[in-house]
């Protein structure tokens, strides 16, 4: 007989399976991820502060002898001044972006280096993997802060902010490299990678077109982690006095405050400003990281009831 089916229009459902798997719109998802939102908001307000700050106060006031020294917070000096006459509000406006700069540069360099090495080691395997993993493992055992202190202390003359970032990055790439490598190991055996091979894709292309996009949430979370670690390391170095001596970064401010006995002298505002700024910074980074973690790891996502 072989009659042909006519006029059977299947209902054009755009999900054939009952709405269990779905691609959530970004907006709807973000509504459910309060950590990410709160973290992003906090971080953006810090950025805004750095960006708009110079409109309200002259950056030059962050230099010594630009205001009456040792003044507590008042309407003229909202954050007070330190004992060398720096207006601490101006220091915040100048120092915060410097600290962020260190963190972002270092975090970025670390993640790029870590990703490239991790992807290669994970996908290519063999000797390349052994080499990269070996270097990684050796460097991971190195006590980072000690090395950083030694390096920073032995660089003659003033160390610039960018230099600091690179020094920090050199010891921050290993952790992303390791974790990305293990992610790649699992993704490498996926059927869609085999499909890509069958379709004629070569190894480098497979790594960047097939595997990497699926690592993006993971990379983002790693990036935030690297940034946080880098900022912490740089502040640590600065607080020990090994930072750029001429720049009023947050860490240097802490250093000076401690060196000049701010607490004993009752100048609580001197230490408070950098500490509060750093705390807000880290809380925001942590929340962003936790929020991104939720995206990367769907099991952590809250289920609506």
């Amino acid at each position, binding site marked *: 007989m072989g009659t042909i*089916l006519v006029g059977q229009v299947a209902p054009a459902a755009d999900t054939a399976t009952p709405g269990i798997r779905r691609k959530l719109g970004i907006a709807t998802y973000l509504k459910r991820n309060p950590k990410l939102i709160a973290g992003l908001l906090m971080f953006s307000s810090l950025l805004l502060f750095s960006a708009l700050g110079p409109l309200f106060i002259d950056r030059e006031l962050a230099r010594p002898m630009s205001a009456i020294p040792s003044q507590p917070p008042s309407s003229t000096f909202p954050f007070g001044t330190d004992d060398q006459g720096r207006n601490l509000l101006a220091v915040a406006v100048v120092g915060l972006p410097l600290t962020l700069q260190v963190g972002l540069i270092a975090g970025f360099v670390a993640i790029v280096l870590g990703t490239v090495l991790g992807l290669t080691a994970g996908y290519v395997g063999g000797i390349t993997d052994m080499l990269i993993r070996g270097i990684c493992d050796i460097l991971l055992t190195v006590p980072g802060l000690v090395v950083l202190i030694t390096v920073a202390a032995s660089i003659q003359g003033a160390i610039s902010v960018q230099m600091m970032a690179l020094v920090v990055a050199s010891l921050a790439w290993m952790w992303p490299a390791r974790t990305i490598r293990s992610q790649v190991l699992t993704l490498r055996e996926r059927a869609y990678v085999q499909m890509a091979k069958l379709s004629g894709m070569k190894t480098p292309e497979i790594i960047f077109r097939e595997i990497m996009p699926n690592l993006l949430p993971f990379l983002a979370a790693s990036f935030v982690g690297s940034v946080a670690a880098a900022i912490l390391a740089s502040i640590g170095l600065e607080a020990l006095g090994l930072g750029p001596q001429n720049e009023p970064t947050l860490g240097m401010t802490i250093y000076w405050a401690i060196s000049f006995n701010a607490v004993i002298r009752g100048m609580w505002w001197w230490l408070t400003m950098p500490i509060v700024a750093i705390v807000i910074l880290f809380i925001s980074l942590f929340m962003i990281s936790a929020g991104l973690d939720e995206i990367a790891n769907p099991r952590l996502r809250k*289920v609506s009831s």
Partner: protein
Amino acid sequence: MISTQPVTRGLIAPTDVLAVDDLQVSYRSDRGEVRAVGGVTFGLKPGERLGLVGESGCGKTTTALAIMRLIRPPGRIVGGRILLRDGGGEIDLASLSDERMRRTRLSEVALIPQGSMNSLNPVKRIGDHFADSIQAHERRVPDSEIRDRTADVLKMVGLRESTAKLYPHELSGGMKQRVCIALSITLSPKVIIADEPTSALDVVVQRHVMETLGAVQQRLNAAVILVGHDMGLLAQFVDRLGVMYAGKLVELAPIKDLFENPLHPYTRLLISSLPTLDQRGTFHGVPGLPPSLLNLPVGCLFAPRCPSVMERCSVETPPLQEVAPGHWAACHLYRTTAVPVVTAVVAANETEMPRDAGGHNGLPYRE
């Protein structure tokens, strides 16, 4: 309590060990309510083997999970009763507290879930799995008794007592599945629900596992609900078979009656699409797609794909009616009050493709 609905009275009998009465399960999603199970009613006789067959999304697994009260948010039971009868009384599982349900699970109603061989804890020995189950339900059972009971139940599934000392990865797929069967009968439940218990196993092991399940069931005189999509497997094992489609039961009959005289058009198409060893080169598919459970059409859910569809079908939902003794079907073709008006006959199941047809590309229809 027997349902007061006249239509369903025959589906459930007072002697049934389990009675599912108008069960409804829905999932809340961003785009609305997904009705996974839309009013399913059937009764399970003691010691009986009942099968539930259907394709993906038909609601058979959801029904099984609902009976075990294992539906998690965003899904929930939105209606109906699940009556477990034991001795004199009956309890509605749907309305039990979480704690009471926990105690009922495994001791009265047990589940062998899909992919259960992968749910064995890889860092625990087999024996520990049994110990956990027993101790979770009974207090202060001495270790020697646990060991004995474990050995007994392993023997019932054809495994040696020494298996208890092994770790899951040391067992083959078939052996793991038999361990799962053994786990489910540890406390001698009255009802065993097996959800696709052999899906990852090959034919020989599958047969062995099913025969084991059958032997165990007979030993305990437990009733079994076997959920699956393999009509062949169900034909080999069950006494009665229920066919589900888009969350509803469309046919329910003793297995021989169902195969000899399938009433519902969907059942007929399903059966004719099964590959057989009788004749080579005949391929019958079932055209179309099941409806979206978000947006169910009015009337019979199978109407858009039905070769015998009538005008009435897209307007009125056919109820499950007893067309022959013990043989229920939800189809307007069998409504005695209906006058069938055939408006569109689509011969979907007559698409036997002769092997040397060069004209077609092999497909007589579009999806």
